């Protein structure tokens, strides 16, 4: 298949400016700046059906059209925080196809009437940022960034901003706080970024993969993009395949591919021919799906995954084989969310603390079946009560796996019926000291 986002897999050396230029690079940006109106660009992206690849799947062009008119400044921010466990696509884009991302950011900036754009990268991407900075410098040197571009009155510069190890900064309003030099705590919405974003100005914020689609959409047109994928899910999606598969990695595939094809045809199947027990479709914050033939034949597009009670989100597919104990999986996810809760709202801060406490008790052999009920009850109480979706993310795997795999949790209880059904061949997890402020 021809790649759109991972086009470097078809064109060797695409991370070099000369190669990128030889393949039509920045022609679209130049054409847009010299001959189009911002509204015309927004119209094309809207008609293409492109939806946000950062998780929520919101229509991209529509989001751009919400920008409040007649304000003194506009900003575009690219979300390269990529911190959802199981997600590793934006890093590949930045490392291997950096100019297409930058051109996407630049076209978006023109459409948003922004003269400054920031790419927010998680702090661990420090080495990636070092290289990306040199790419931006090349664009300035060649006159693709700077004042009065191509002799017009449009000026633009792009800067990188590094985070410093906080998952919550992937949430758009927390991310904006972080660029402003504050703690990354989410803002109350509304107002939305399109009205009051960075420095109080209207701001477009999109994911890395979303923006990397933009140059080809504007170059080839909305109809071309709509011709790929399925209804309501136009184009391709980079699937991040991890866990129990023979060939984990990024696979850019048209929407509509089935889970079975992703795991078996592309991912090479499950090691030792084991069966798949469960999958998480969008990283650690997903609904845990119990895998049946019906789930394996599910079409991977926004509507079909939603119809199964899950979300395609960033398409970070974590595969778990039949040896996995779901209570151990939930210990891992809960530890993550407890560590990453920003502490601003009580249900998320306290709820995650208590859920982890209960899970650790179960795993130390001291827990009872009443603890499993307590876990269910704490998670249910957190649900729907948090300031931002992080709290919701944290309880989603807990509640869904308690529903589908309750036996795995009960088997951990000391008052469980003996003999224990042998769960995972996993060592009993112990309390792990985590880096940084736990």
């Amino acid at each position, binding site marked *: 298949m021809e790649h759109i986002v991972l086009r470097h897999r078809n064109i060797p050396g695409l991370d070099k400016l000369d190669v990128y230029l030889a393949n039509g690079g920045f022609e679209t940006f130049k054409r847009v700046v010299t001959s189009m109106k911002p509204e015309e660009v927004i119209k094309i992206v809207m008609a293409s059906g492109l939806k946000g690849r950062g998780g929520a799947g919101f229509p991209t062009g529509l989001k751009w059209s919400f920008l409040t008119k007649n304000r003194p*400044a506009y900003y575009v921010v690219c979300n390269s925080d990529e*911190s959802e466990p199981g997600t590793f696509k934006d890093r590949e884009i930045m490392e291997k196809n950096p100019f297409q991302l930058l051109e996407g950011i630049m076209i978006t900036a023109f459409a948003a009437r922004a003269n400054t754009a920031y790419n927010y990268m998680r702090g661990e991407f420090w080495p990636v940022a070092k290289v990306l900075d040199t790419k931006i410098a090349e664009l300035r040197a060649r006159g693709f960034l700077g004042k009065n571009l191509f002799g017009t009155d449009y000026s633009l510069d792009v800067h990188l901003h590094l985070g410093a190890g906080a998952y919550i900064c992937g949430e758009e309003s927390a991310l904006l706080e972080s660029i402003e030099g504050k703690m990354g705590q989410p803002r109350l919405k509304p107002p939305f970024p399109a009205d009051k974003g960075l420095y109080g100005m209207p701001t477009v914020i999109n994911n890395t993969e979303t923006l990397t689609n933009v140059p080809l959409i504007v170059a080839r047109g909305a109809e071309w993009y709509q011709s790929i994928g399925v209804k309501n899910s136009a184009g391709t999606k980079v699937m991040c395949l991890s866990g129990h598969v023979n060939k984990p990695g990024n696979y850019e595939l048209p929407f509509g591919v089935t889970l079975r094809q992703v795991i078996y045809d592309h991912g090479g199947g499950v090691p030792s021919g084991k069966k798949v027990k469960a999958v998480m479709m969008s990283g650690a914050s997903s609904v845990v799906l119990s895998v049946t033939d019906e789930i394996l034949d599910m079409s991977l597009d926004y509507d079909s995954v939603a119809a199964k009670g899950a979300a395609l989100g960033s398409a970070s597919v974590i595969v778990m084989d039949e040896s996995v104990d779901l209570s151990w999986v939930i210990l891992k996810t809960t530890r993550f969310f407890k560590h990453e809760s920003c502490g601003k709202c009580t249900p998320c801060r306290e709820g995650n603390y208590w859920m982890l406490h209960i899970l650790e008790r179960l795993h130390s052999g001291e827990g009872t079946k009443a603890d499993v009920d307590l876990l269910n009850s704490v998670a249910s109480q957190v649900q729907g009560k948090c300031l931002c979706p992080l709290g919701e993310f944290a309880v989603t795997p807990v509640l869904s796996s308690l529903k589908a795999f309750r036996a795995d949790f009960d088997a951990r209880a000391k008052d469980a019926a003996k003999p224990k059904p042998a769960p995972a061949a996993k060592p009993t997890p112990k309390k792990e000291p985590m880096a940084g402020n736990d």
Partner: protein
Amino acid sequence: MLAEKYREQIAATLAKYPADQKRSAVMPLLYMAQSEYGYVTKEALAEVAEIVGVEPTQVASIVGFYSLYYDHAGGQHRVQVCTDLPCALRGADKFADDLCAKFGIKLGETTKDGMFTIEGVMCVAACDKAPVFQAQNKEGIVYHENQTVESAVKVMEELKGKK
């Protein structure tokens, strides 16, 4: 003093943000301080606060909030093994424990010679290349992917040689 030693870099950092939004530079400046002193010292806090024009306590709250800033010295090299779910499904917990055992420490501890701190960290966006660790020191962060205990020990020996 950062302000004198890195005058040009600081000016370039401030120039990335609107003139009335100097505070935005606090994160890049903290990285600068950390690479200069090894961690964010009290003096560094005050220096950064002065440059961006906020109170040192505000800078301290930033250091406390973000896990990649340190307010105390650790080993010269932080070896941060991802033990999050996708990596753990591919054996990362055992890898981390075995690596620690090689150095006679537990996860989260520092070797006696002060050279290495081995820590478990959350997902670092390299889940398809587990086991993975990042080596963090004054020079920055380097990813080491598809590791075995043997290859990791080798990487660490090389780091030790470099000092």
